[in-house]
């Protein structure tokens, strides 16, 4: 049953969760990606294995962690280890999905979380940098990207800094640069739409819009030329059960879903 009212963040979380298959593994940070992974575990993917960069493997998360490494990320875990061990597991091929975000994204799914401006020495805004994002985007089989504000300032022709590799400059570019084969971003989930990458050109493609959003709205909010799928679908809104899990089980303190 569809829930009668929901916020955009809830809609994004639910749509991100639905991308995760049961029995696979995912590396996450905090915020929406983690919420998506937790929601997937509580609904269709009980056997989803969660990895945290700081060294937590397969925890039973009691509540949303505030930090990628905090106690909640190792609560009743099966293994606590090191950051390099998580990265090694990923390069060995054990990790199916990684969730990423950023301040800017381009048509090939390259992400910027390092800086705004064109002078590296004197950036207009300095962001945290890669953290584990570049590692995740380089090493996981499939990268899922969450962008919480779909706007021309964030969806840009050229990102100010390629922190994390998408398809770099086009088909074959990842392999050409030495990155692992058969990897790269698969989906982009935004507050307006769901996108993927057209297989031949590796360019971002609109495949679905959220309820009430038109294809034109998405085109206007994108600073580069989008490929539009032959049939653009509509995403399915959250169910009452999903909303209840989000608020009562995952984020009762309202860190992400402000009360």
């Amino acid at each position: 049953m569809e829930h009668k009212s929901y916020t955009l963040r809830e809609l994004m979380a639910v749509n991100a969760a639905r991308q995760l298959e049961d029995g696979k593994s995912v590396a996450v940070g905090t915020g929406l990606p983690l919420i998506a992974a937790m929601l997937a575990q509580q609904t269709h993917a009980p056997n989803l294995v969660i990895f945290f960069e700081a060294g937590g493997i397969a925890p039973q998360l009691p509540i949303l962690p505030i930090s990628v490494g905090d106690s909640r990320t190792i609560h009743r875990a099966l293994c606590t280890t090191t950051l390099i061990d998580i990265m090694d597991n990923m390069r060995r091929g054990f990790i199916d999905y990684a969730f990423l975000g950023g301040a800017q994204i381009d048509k090939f799914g390259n992400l910027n979380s390092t800086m705004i401006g064109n002078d590296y020495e004197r950036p207009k805004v300095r962001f945290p940098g890669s953290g584990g994002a570049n590692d995740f985007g380089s090493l996981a089989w499939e990268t899922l990207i969450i962008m919480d504000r779909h706007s021309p300032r964030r969806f840009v022709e050229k990102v100010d800094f390629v922190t994390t590799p998408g398809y770099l400059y086009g088909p074959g570019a990842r392999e050409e640069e030495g990155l692992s084969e058969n990897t790269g971003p698969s989906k982009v989930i935004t507050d307006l739409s769901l996108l993927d990458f057209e297989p031949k050109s590796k360019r971002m493609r609109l495949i679905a819009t959220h309820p009430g959003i038109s294809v034109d709205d998405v085109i206007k909010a994108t600073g580069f030329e989008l490929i539009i799928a032959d049939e653009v679908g509509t995403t399915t809104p959250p169910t009452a059960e999903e909303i209840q899990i989000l608020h009562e089980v995952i984020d009762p303190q309202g860190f992400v879903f402000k009360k």
Partner: protein
Amino acid sequence: MEMKILKEGTGEIFCKNTPSEVRNWTRESKPRALKDKRMRIKDAVKKYISDGDYLAIGGFGHIRIPMAIIYEIVRQRIKNLSVAGHTAVQDIDVLMAGGCVSAVDIAYVVGFELRGLSGVQRRLFESGQVKKTDYTNGAMSYRLRAGAQGIPFIPVKVMLGTDTMMHSPGKVVKCPFTGEKVLLLPSLNPDVCILHAHRADMYGNVQIDGHIVKDDLQARASKRVIVTCEELVSTDKIRAEPGRTVIPFFMVDAVIEQPWGSHPGNMPYKYYFDHEFTENYLSVGREENPKAMEAWLDDWVYNLEDYDDYLTKLGAKRLYNLRDLEFLRPPVR
């Protein structure tokens, strides 16, 4: 046959130690015998940390961070440190607010994760006052692994094709065995590693509960290691479960028993974040007027004799509430 460099970054290498030099230095400078290494934090910082050193910090940003040592470094006004920003949050922020830092290897800094960006770090990085080289968390750990192993560089499969690589000192080459492209990164042997653990004995046998993050590698790669611990235990306790010793005694130079030593950070299985304290600190750092942060540092660092005074200022009630939070119990005090 010389290896052909296919592409290379422009990032500066801030830590100048090479594994061979560090190996030779170790022969003369690190005692192997069991030796009582207990001392005061004040004395350990004075003895082992100098202006211009390259510092590696244990834990993960605000998890299991050695805050008692961090505050002491600020109190002693140590200058021109280069720091491994291998996810550094509140730890590096306090050091930068205190004017101790001149260069940072950045994997993750500036951000306080869900809590937003740091005003202190934004000002110092955006104005160019603090120098930086970009890496990734994986890259920094790989560099430490090479440092621990005693090899001068390490081939990795991250950063390739990105601006992160172009602003690092990395060099792309073809593997001489398989022909595939790899990125070479310089190893990292910090001058000093500081960390906070759950327990240690007087000789410096260190045990950590839960995730180790990168503390094992940092201790192995660094010349000097200063350890604070929640609890100083007998060596018999260490000998009963030697498989739990993450860092053995001969790597360690100083041991200090310092309960609550990670405040306002989260010490897994001991106490949770002091969220309010961190939020307040962040808001002070975001004020335009630098006097606000100076006043904060006066209150919480300079005008206090040591970390014991800091804990007294916080008060027992506040600390015990953090213990309740850690165990998901409603605070009762």
